[in-house]
């Protein structure tokens, strides 16, 4: 009897499986494929249109989580949102796949658990097991087709963005670099003497005191890149322009020194930057030369309708003192030996704008090998100015020292040997790896007015005549050494009290070079 019962049950089960379950499963399979594909679309929608939060590459997370390295000079990743296609698109694709996987695996787990809890439907297994397994398998198959398609779309759009963005990034960087090369622009700091092709920029957005003190408001590499092609979004939410050229005009950014954080002059990094260190022995007349050169430059600018301004208060104060001393024919004050003085002048004529930094250090500091190690501004100057006091030349002193004692007293002659004064700085440059053969040297013989009071034939003011005169007075070695060390040397004879175009300002014209040769 039992055998007959089993036979009837299994016959009915087989019939049910064949005539009902299989057709129903076929229909369910079709529907489940579409549902699986639709679930992937919903997953993508939830990731892409959902609320932002988890899975975001925030500026803080990007500091270490964004692929690619930060160049050593830029220290660390700037506090800005990475460009969407730089990393977030990949994270979103990953999140979509993760969500689809979570749903699929969850569906399988739930389905299998339901079957096991319910003993595969018990006596009803013929109409339960196959449809459940069919729905799970077909749904997964639909998802497996739709998910790669979704990821492919994200990948294609990301690739398109990279293909368009990458050349644009390098084009814009090239524009910046081309501008720097053409105008010889650079950002230089008069506080720590560091120079940089790309200055740092401090965001003026709503940063808290903690961010300000930790430097989290500082953008060290504002070039187009992973953090933005044309614009970048600061961590504070402010939209900032990329490129040094555009950043210089932004009211949201303050140009800073990347080394010490000191605020730099307006336009630093964009406009031409000329660093002009003046060196020589103590009492050689360096400060007097700078005073006359600055006052003369101001007068020359007025004559040429060129706008000349002192962009910082320190420069304005120094210029006021210099003007006063020059008008009274008073001697320059002794330069402080504690720190070198940097006076910056901004010269503008239409598109041609130049920041001229004149660096003056005490002769004692320059000639002392230990102290001059800190004068790093010497290393980054294209043109240096060596000031030589003719009254410190041994032959002049020996021949005229006694007979023209009053002139020597007025000259307050430098006691240091000119060769030693030159060598101390030249050797420092070479020890610090400066290739002086690429640099120019203005070899300035000062105190021309006093020199003419001596009973000797003073040279003409042209370079060859001054050179010849120096050689004739026992400085041939120094002249040859200077000419061997530097790529170009020009000799000048000036008076530290002369503010005419032929005076010290002529040296500045040569130092400034291109674009300002006819100033004054």
């Amino acid at each position, binding site marked *: 009897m039992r055998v007959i019962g089993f036979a009837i049950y299994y016959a009915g089960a087989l019939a049910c499986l064949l005539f009902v379950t299989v057709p129903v499963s*076929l229909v369910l399979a079709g529907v489940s494929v579409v549902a699986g594909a639709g679930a992937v679309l919903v997953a993508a929608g939830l990731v892409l249109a959902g609320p932002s939060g988890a899975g975001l590459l925030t500026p803080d997370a990007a500091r270490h989580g964004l692929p690619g390295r930060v160049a050593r000079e830029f220290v660390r990743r700037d506090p800005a949102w990475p460009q969407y296609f730089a990393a977030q698109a990949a994270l979103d694709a990953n999140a979509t796949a993760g969500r689809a996987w979570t749903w699929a695996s969850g569906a399988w787990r739930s389905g299998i658990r339901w079957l096991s809890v319910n003993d595969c439907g018990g006596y009803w297994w013929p109409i339960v097991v196959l449809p459940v397994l069919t729905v799970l398998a077909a749904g997964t198959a639909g998802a497996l087709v739709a998910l790669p398609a979704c990821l492919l779309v994200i990948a294609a759009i990301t690739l398109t963005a990279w293909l368009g963005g990458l050349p644009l990034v390098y084009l814009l960087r090239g524009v910046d670099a081309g501008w720097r090369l053409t105008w010889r622009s650079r950002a230089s700091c008069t506080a720590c003497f560091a120079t940089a092709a790309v200055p740092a920029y401090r965001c003026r957005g709503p940063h808290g005191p903690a961010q300000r003190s930790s430097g989290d408001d500082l953008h060290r590499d504002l070039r187009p890149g992973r953090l933005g092609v044309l614009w970048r979004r600061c961590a*504070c939410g402010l939209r900032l322009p990329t490129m040094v050229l555009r950043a210089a005009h932004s009211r949201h950014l303050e140009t800073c020194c990347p080394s010490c954080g000191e605020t730099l002059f307006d336009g630093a990094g964009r406009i031409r930057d000329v660093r002009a260190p003046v060196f020589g022995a103590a009492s050689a007349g360096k400060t007097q030369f700078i005073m006359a050169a600055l006052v003369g430059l101001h007068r020359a600018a007025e004559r040429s309708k060129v706008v000349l301004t002192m962009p910082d208060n320190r420069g304005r104060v120094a210029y006021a003192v210099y003007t006063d001393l020059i008008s009274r024919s008073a001697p320059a004050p002794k330069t402080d030996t504690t720190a070198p003085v940097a006076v910056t002048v901004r010269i503008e004529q239409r598109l041609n704008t130049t920041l001229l930094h004149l660096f003056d250090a005490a002769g004692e500091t320059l000639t002392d090998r230990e102290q001059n190690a800190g004068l790093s501004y010497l290393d980054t100057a294209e043109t240096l100015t060596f000031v030589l006091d003719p009254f410190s030349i041994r032959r002049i002193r020996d021949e005229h020292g006694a007979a023209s004692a009053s002139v020597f007293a007025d000259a307050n002659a430098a006691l240091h040997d000119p060769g030693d004064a030159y060598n101390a700085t030249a050797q420092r440059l070479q020890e610090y790896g400066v290739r002086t053969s690429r640099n120019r040297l203005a070899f300035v013989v000062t105190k021309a007015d006093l020199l003419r009071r001596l009973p000797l034939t003073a040279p003409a003011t042209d370079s060859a005549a001054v050179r010849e005169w120096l050689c004739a007075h026992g400085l041939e070695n120094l002249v040859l050494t200077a000419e061997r060390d530097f790529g170009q040397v020009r000799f000048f004879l000036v008076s530290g009290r002369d503010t005419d175009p032929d005076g010290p300002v002529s040296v500045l014209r040569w130092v400034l070079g291109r674009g300002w040769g006819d100033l004054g």
Partner: protein
Amino acid sequence: MADPRTRLPAVHRLSRLTILLVIVALAVWFGTSPAVLSAVDRATAVITDITATIWRPLTETG
């Protein structure tokens, strides 16, 4: 107001929305394309055929 350090920038949301729109547009285009519609028709026909074949012993008498 949400913390700007964790609030996705508008341009990011726009990029996400663009991708989503492209995905939806492609899905709609693909789902309504003649190839897919004819594939659905063929699948329906196959299922109908299989069902009819299975049920033939029940529907055909004598």
